[in-house]
């Protein structure tokens, strides 16, 4: 029996490939989670066995991926509208919403339990809270309710280094809170720069991004103010136990560029931005990725130097 409709298959439950499920985990966000968690783990003063360390980072990554899958499940309606997200597995019809939900919940439970078994209850508890915060507090509640969604919701992305630190030490410390704060304060300018050049997308989806609720002028001012607040914090960390001369050098350079970029964003208006297709905003956004990567690499390098008796003040 042949059926002409076999050539244009309707996606049903059970039809997704491995890559489609993997895409649900938001791999690019996962890579940031993995990197910052690894820095938190390695910068901690307590060593861990490589197998335990590998397992911890893997389960933290899986927990981060579970959050991504559950976020995609909840936001399938918005993802269909936004150009940036239309090709995601659910809007493109590769994975059903029910599958994404089941997948996300299973991985969330699995990652928390396994992290607890591999390391300790503190790391598992922070991971569980992170998943809850991102999915329930940010995705389900704040994102569609307040323009400060990014500010508060950014905490979810700031937890991984704390989880890595807790996996090694079994506790929270000033150092891990500092790493948390660095990411927390970095998140708003990073996302608001994105919102500036992805302008129509969020508006059409009905998400209350600052660009829509308070206007683009206000968003530019917010980017400048938050960067002004971030810079002393990032540089100040050089004089704490996770910092040192190398970190200070890196922080001064990166924050110099970041402040310059934020100032330029604040100074220009929409006419200037449209004329060069938001070149400054896009450059700032790219810089923000190097910014975070650079700071955490410096923290890692400082920690590695300390183990040889170098680094520190």
């Amino acid at each position, binding site marked *: 029996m042949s059926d002409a409709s076999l050539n244009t298959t309707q996606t049903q439950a059970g039809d*997704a490939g491995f890559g489609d499920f993997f895409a649900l985990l938001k791999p690019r966000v996962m890579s940031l989670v993995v990197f910052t968690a690894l820095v938190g783990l390695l910068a901690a003063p307590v060593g861990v066995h490589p*197998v335990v360390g590998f397992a911890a980072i893997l389960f933290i990554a899986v927990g981060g991926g579970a959050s991504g899958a559950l976020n995609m499940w909840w936001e399938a309606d918005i993802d269909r509208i936004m150009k940036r997200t239309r090709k995601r597995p659910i809007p493109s019809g590769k994975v059903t919403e029910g599958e994404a939900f089941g997948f996300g919940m299973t991985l969330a439970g699995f990652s928390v339990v396994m992290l607890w078994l591999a390391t300790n209850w503190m790391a598992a508890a922070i991971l569980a809270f992170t998943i809850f915060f991102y999915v329930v507090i940010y995705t389900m509640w704040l994102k569609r309710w307040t323009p400060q969604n990014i500010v508060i919701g950014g905490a979810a992305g700031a937890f991984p280094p704390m989880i890595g630190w807790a996996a090694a030490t079994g506790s929270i410390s000033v150092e891990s809170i500092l790493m948390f704060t660095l990411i927390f304060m970095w998140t708003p300018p990073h996302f608001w720069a994105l919102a500036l050049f992805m302008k129509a997308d969020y508006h059409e989806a009905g998400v209350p991004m600052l660009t829509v609720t308070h206007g683009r002028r206000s968003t530019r001012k917010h980017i400048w103010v938050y960067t002004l607040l971030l810079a002393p914090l990032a540089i100040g960390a050089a004089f704490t136990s996770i910092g040192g001369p190398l970190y200070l050098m890196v922080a001064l350079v990166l924050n110099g560029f970041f402040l310059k970029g934020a100032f330029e964003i604040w100074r220009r208006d929409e006419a200037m931005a449209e004329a060069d297709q938001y070149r400054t905003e896009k450059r700032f956004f790219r810089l923000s990725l190097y910014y975070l990567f650079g700071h955490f690499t410096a923290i890692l390098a400082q920690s590695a130097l300390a183990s040889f008796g170098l680094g520190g003040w």
Partner: protein
Amino acid sequence: MSLSKQHELHKRRFSRNLGLGLVLAGLVALIFGLTVVKVTNEDFGVPSQTGSTY
């Protein structure tokens, strides 16, 4: 002579099943490795029996 026709659906299911199989094999290996590390750790100790019975 058997007749079989590969459909795109079969390829997708095969890729999913293969990926899942490899993930599960990796998980088994990892848990085994973790167990060995934990058990050979000098802090590891079998809890003492208190003599209680059901």
